[in-house]
């Protein structure tokens, strides 16, 4: 078995969960990803430990003081051996620390230099903090996700698109470098990730405009009663339907909800989705409340309908389908209670993602990296440690 990115070395200086996760996808598929932890350590590390476990799995860690001459030298040597560099720091800070593209490309001309940013490489707000909340607020979706009259909703999902975009951009640039020998800068922003996750609404508004994209729409005023809709059931759990081509699904859905498939009010797509759509939603609203969610799942399954129960997190935590595909993993560690973790969202037959190493503590691989990658002797490493340059 080979690894897709077997010969790729990535230096990862990301501070945020989402940018580190982008680099984790590269590590999952075989890249040697080395986290560079700054000495002295930043004090405000209050990130959730399980998120750190996820975002830094399969990585190595070296801790060094990049401000000291010896630390800077080791860092520069690392850059010279690396294929890609990942950062989420502000541009001003990168320039001040000589971590900007020009400085690093001078050390390694074909470096792929990837930056996870808040708002992109250009524009008046390119220096705003790289916070997913700020990007989500800017994207325009928060007001229309909830029901009318409710506060805007922050999902936290936007940053994940950016994580994948970062890995996508790095791999794309590596492919180009392999073909031409040319390195370059990659930028994937939280703003782009949030916009991209909302692309259907965003594009629809760009093309069509209209109030229905600016204010929340009641769930009982959907464009299609059978698609994109949610209905409560008897036990307080909810079901959701996605049957856009209603002609195909209507007979089966009518039957399980006790409606007459030949009812002249609903006997065409136009009648269901235009003339009588509000009435049909009311009838579904009543029908689904007559039985509990589990009953409806059985009916959906029996007829192969495109609908399901809206679950909570306990579902993926125990779902066999999630476990079999390693979307969710059982984690066992000596001396700790067994736990679960998100696994791998992507299957490659010849380069399967593996959990080869747990997230490292800061500096866990300092000696190993200095010795194996840079050829430092044990004496030199001990000297640097004694001087507080590495740990």
């Amino acid at each position, binding site marked *: 078995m080979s690894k897709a990115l077997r010969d790729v070395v990535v230096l990862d200086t990301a501070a945020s969960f989402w940018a580190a996760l982008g680099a984790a996808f590269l590590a999952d598929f075989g890249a040697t990803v080395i986290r560079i932890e700054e000495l002295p350590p930043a004090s405000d590390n209050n990130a959730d430990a399980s998120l750190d476990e996820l975002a830094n799995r399969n990585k190595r860690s070296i801790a060094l003081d990049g401000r000291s001459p010896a630390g800077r030298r080791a860092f520069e040597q690392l850059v010279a051996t690396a294929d890609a560099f990942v950062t989420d720091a502000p541009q001003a800070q990168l320039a001040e620390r000589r971590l900007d593209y020009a400085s690093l490309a001078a050390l390694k001309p074909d470096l792929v230099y990837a930056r996870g940013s808040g708002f992109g490489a250009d524009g008046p707000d390119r220096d705003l903090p790289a916070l997913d909340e700020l990007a989500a607020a800017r994207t325009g979706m928060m007001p229309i996700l909830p029901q009318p009259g409710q506060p805007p909703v922050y999902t936290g999902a936007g940053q994940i698109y950016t994580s994948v975009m970062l890995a996508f951009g790095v791999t794309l640039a590596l492919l180009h470098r392999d073909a031409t020998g040319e390195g370059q800068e990659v930028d994937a922003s939280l703003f782009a990730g949030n916009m991209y996750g909302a692309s259907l*609404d965003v*594009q629809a508004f760009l093309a069509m405009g209209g109030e229905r994209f600016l204010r929340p729409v009641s769930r009982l005023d959907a464009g299609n009663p059978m698609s994109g809709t*949610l209905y409560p059931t008897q036990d307080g759990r909810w079901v959701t339907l996605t049957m856009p081509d209603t002609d195909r699904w209507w007979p089966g859905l009518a039957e399980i909800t006790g409606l007459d498939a030949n009812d002249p009010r609903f006997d065409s797509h136009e009648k269901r989705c235009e003339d009588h759509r509000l009435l049909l939603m009311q009838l579904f609203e009543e029908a689904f409340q007559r039985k509990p969610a589990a009953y409806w799942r059985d009916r959906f399954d029996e007829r192969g309908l495109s609908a399901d129960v809206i679950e909570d997190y306990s579902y993926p935590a125990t779902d066999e389908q999630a476990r079999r595909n390693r979307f969710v993993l059982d984690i066992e560690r000596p001396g700790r209670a067994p736990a679960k973790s998100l696994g791998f969202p992507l299957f490659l037959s010849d380069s399967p993602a593996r959990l080869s190493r747990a997230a490292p503590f800061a500096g866990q691989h300092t000696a190993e990296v200095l010795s194996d990658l840079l050829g430092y002797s044990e004496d030199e490493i001990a000297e640097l440690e004694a001087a507080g340059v590495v740990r």
Partner: protein
Amino acid sequence: MSAERASSGETSTAKPLTGVRVIDLTVWFQGPVAAQHLADFGAEVIHVERPQGGDFGRGVRTIKAVPVGDWNQYFLVINRNKKSLAVDLKQEAGQEIMRRLVERSDVFLSNLGEDNLERWQLTYERLGEINPRLVYALASGYGRYGGMNKPAFDLTVQALTGLMSRLGEPGQPPIYAGMGSGDAIGGLMAALGVLLALYQRRRTGRGQQINASLYGAQLFLAAPTLQPYLASRDDRLARQRSRMDAPNPLWNTYPTNDGWVFLCLENTDDNWSALCRSLDDAALACDQRFATATGRREHAAALVAALDERLAKRGDGEWLERWRAAGITASRINNLADLARDPQAWENGYFTKAYCEEVQREVDVRGVPVRLSKTPGAVETLGPELGQHTEEILVEALGYTWEQIGELKAQGVIL
């Protein structure tokens, strides 16, 4: 492979995927958008469609009960930079066209059901035999293993992740993260998988199978809260949580007298003082309940209520101006109209203009979300007409004669 064919590329600007040919046998959104990412960066993407009606996305008439208008942006934007080949895969001659295309392609990408792919002899086993270098990617519903075989649309799969159940105020209906939110991440994962396999192929000379699912990808959308839940099994993480009960009231949404703002401040005493100063509110600054980080956390409901009351006195423009001056991190909560005119989106190319043949004018479209400084992606053409490139592909890439094409048309194999 890009290096080998790059030299004969006909486009003016080199793109990282120039010379990579992708068979895009996909419908709706998840599959087409995966291929869109590849097309944006120079891959030759051939969108394979049935002759009768083509991709279902062509049939979209309304979105949120709003008519799509004179151009179908749903289809045309995610199928930009692509060619269209209309071929009936139910017929043997149509399958033969696909096999010839597979011989001459780098990637096969599909989000159709595996039963269809089997019926049309488009399984990996079959296609890998024809072309061992082929990267075979499925954008699936529930993943490669486990045998779950029910219909998969992004909302019905998002329902299973648990994300919807924890969004919004307690007692409110579950919340969908947005139309296409699941397809968008599933498609992006598939595109990443294709690139990884292409990268590996440079060394091994062999293709492989990829499976990127709506379920696996959407579980990751929930990662910021699902991962802590999986580690702790703390039920509070699975439930709706009111903004009145924010873990840190300084990091929360607030209504103003004309909209909403998102305030993003760590719960420190310095930030609290700065915020009180910006509110011109000495009484609040002196309130002993809120004097420490712990106090602010423990009295969250009271603090959110106090801030609600004060922030409602002015408009968000005024607050944000004050906060900018005071170094307080916050944003107005925009709507899509604000976004549509946001210079930040335009200057980074997240929005761009493209010429739409259908209406013979320039239209505003989503641009390329990932920036590569030397080999940027671009929107060169919007989605093709159904079958627009059928003849070109059959003649130039597959070596069919015009006589054979006439026969195939007569038999209804191609459009």
